[in-house]
């Protein structure tokens, strides 16, 4: 007879091993799906996981692209993870990402076409501030009126999307191209362009910011009192309160950090790879980052790996569509499998399966 037994402590081994196992299982199940679609499963898996990094034809281009695709995911996820550890659920990073981009682009467009070394740093500050501000709405509503931050932050995404559309159509519209929505192309405005720091590497300031954020988050969570408070509030809220941790302060700090980082990600995107404020600017980074945070076990370094892995499946997914004509929907299913297997496997972090003989009385 099979019996489930709750572990006394979550298994450290499975916490680390599960993501790798999940990738392996996704490869197997995905391979079966690709085979059922009449595609060569080995070639498909290779296109998704190996060719973007190793193929002679694509790698020199897609390796830098991997950084460009993953950096905003990592930057956002690192911030979210801090909140998630403290049981503060910011689901609206997508909205903070949009507002950050609008603040950053707003600074750039206000200075256009003036040159100046100070413009880009100002945009960085504005981007972080925009995201922070947008995250303060659910934070203050939560601390003052005890509203649910999950709902408020999520619904504010839709508000942010509408503001984005209004900006692309109105205030920020390119005056040289009337009739068409969208702002000026910031990539053509040198003082505001978030260009590659080293040409051909994909390393732009957003990648640097993501790295710094990872290191800071790690230091904070392991070495700083605040990190200890966050962990304590997440694991034992009552004990935390007795220990003098103010829940309201934690909510504000967690939402503020994650909002500012999401805003930064949006700002680096709009001034670099995205290029301009357009109605369709937001492409779901803020939501995908939630997956990245959990896939990375809410650990800053885990998040780096998870972000790169997810970025890989996007770029490899496109390659496999292009080279093998695998339908786009199958790629999405494949990405979904990854999360599904991880969540399913996490079961054994907290439980163990026991085989027992005979029925119990």
């Amino acid at each position: 007879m099979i019996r489930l037994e709750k572990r006394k402590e979550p298994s450290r081994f499975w916490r680390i091993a599960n993501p790798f196992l999940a990738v392996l299982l996704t490869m197997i199940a995905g391979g079966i799906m690709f085979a059922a679609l009449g595609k060569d499963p080995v070639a498909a898996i290779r296109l998704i996981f190996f060719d973007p990094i190793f193929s002679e034809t694509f790698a020199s281009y897609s390796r830098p692209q991997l950084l460009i695709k993953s950096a905003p995911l990592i930057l956002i996820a690192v911030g979210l993870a801090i909140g998630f550890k403290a049981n503060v659920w910011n689901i609206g990073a997508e909205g903070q990402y949009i507002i950050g981009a609008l603040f950053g682009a707003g600074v750039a467009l206000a200075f256009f076409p003036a040159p100046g070394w100070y413009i880009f740093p100002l945009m960085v500050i504005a981007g972080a501030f925009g995201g922070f501000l947008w995250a303060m709405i659910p934070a203050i509503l939560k601390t003052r009126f005890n509203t649910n931050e999950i709902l408020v932050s999520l619904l504010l995404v839709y508000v942010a999307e509408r503001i984005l559309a209004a900006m692309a159509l109105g205030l920020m519209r390119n005056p040289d191209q009337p009739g068409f929505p969208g702002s000026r192309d910031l990539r053509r405005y040198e003082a505001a362009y978030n260009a590659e720091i080293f040409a051909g590497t994909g390393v732009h300031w957003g990648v640097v910011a993501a790295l710094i954020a990872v290191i800071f988050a790690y230091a904070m969570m392991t070495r700083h009192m605040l990190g200890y408070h966050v962990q304590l509030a997440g694991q034992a809220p009552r004990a935390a309160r007795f220990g003098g941790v103010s829940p309201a302060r934690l909510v504000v700090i967690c939402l503020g950090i994650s909002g500012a980082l999401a805003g930064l990600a949006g700002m680096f995107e709009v001034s670099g790879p995205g290029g301009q404020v357009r109605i369709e600017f937001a492409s779901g980074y803020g939501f995908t980052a939630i997956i990245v945070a959990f896939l990375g076990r809410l650990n800053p370094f885990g998040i780096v790996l998870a972000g790169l892995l997810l970025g890989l499946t996007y770029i490899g997914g496109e390659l496999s569509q292009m080279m093998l004509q695998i339908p786009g929907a199958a790629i999405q299913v494949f990405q979904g499998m990854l999360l599904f297997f991880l969540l399913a496997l996490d079961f054994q972090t907290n439980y163990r399966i026991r085989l027992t003989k005979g029925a119990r009385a």
Partner: protein
Amino acid sequence: MKKLLTAAALSVTMAIPATADTTKVGFIYIGPVGDFGWTAGHDRARAEMAEHFGDAVETTIVENVDYGADAERVMTQMAISGTDVIFAASFGYGPDVNSVAGRFPDVAFQHATGYIQDHPNISLYDARFYEGRAVLGHIGGKMTETNTVGYIASFPIPAVIAGINSAYLHAKAVNPDIQFRIIWTYSWFDPALEADAAETLIEQGADVIMQHTDSTAAVRVAEDAGVMAFGQASDMTQFGPNAHLSAIVDRWAPYYIDRVQAVMDGTWEAQNSWLGFADGIIEMAPWNDRIPAELQEEADGLIAAIIAGDYHPFTGPINKQDGTPWLADGETAPDVDLATMDFYVEGITAELPN
């Protein structure tokens, strides 16, 4: 590690057949090929083109590609993998097409419904959808019993605005009491949003739904609600046999065959094509039987007049929404006005998002 590298190298040599005489044609789509609308129309044409050329071409597609960095990456990867001509089948790819085209001067780029042409290897192509919208307006104006047409619009860009204006003018011509209710979704393909928009419009009294979005959702909602609708870009009859009056059906195949042939012959040059009924690029889906025979004949007559060049859907006198004159009596709209249209015509009560 070395083993891995060799394996990866092998996989690439396998994936790209080294036959130099095969023309490689890439397509990037904003929606899924199964949208039964806009993207389906392009993919239909791709399949027809591929069949026409047989082994001489190799086509590849990537669907659901967002505007911006994603589109740029997909097109770059296509160019790197030896694609000769890339069709970017959505309006918003403009900046991305131009950025990639600058880096790959030997690859031909074909951008559908675009307007930015910074490099000599970019062709723009578009259909005169406003011609078809005139027919929808005429039929819708006569068929409506509530004198209210609901219009689901995507993005406020000239092509969409011209479509609304054309439909409105021709509905107004046959039904002076006509009202247009317009909802903007800011998306090309979002079935849930389009269904919501259709429901809202029906609640507001619309009994004819027109759409400039790509999914079949509105036609389904109209069918369930017992009202009428026009499909988009493809014949959507199967999603609302009673509701579906007709649809402007895109037929890009003749153009695609023409352009790919030019690439093969080495005669491809950048151009800017705007093709309509007369070129066979758009046609109407079969009339629903519920359209009276007399009205069907009128619609056929309207199409024939447009094809013959006897009639232009934008013929003055037409005023702008604010009352300022646009076209004088008998004057027809110059193409540049239509390609940059950013105003409603007089009579439309809605406000253009701005």
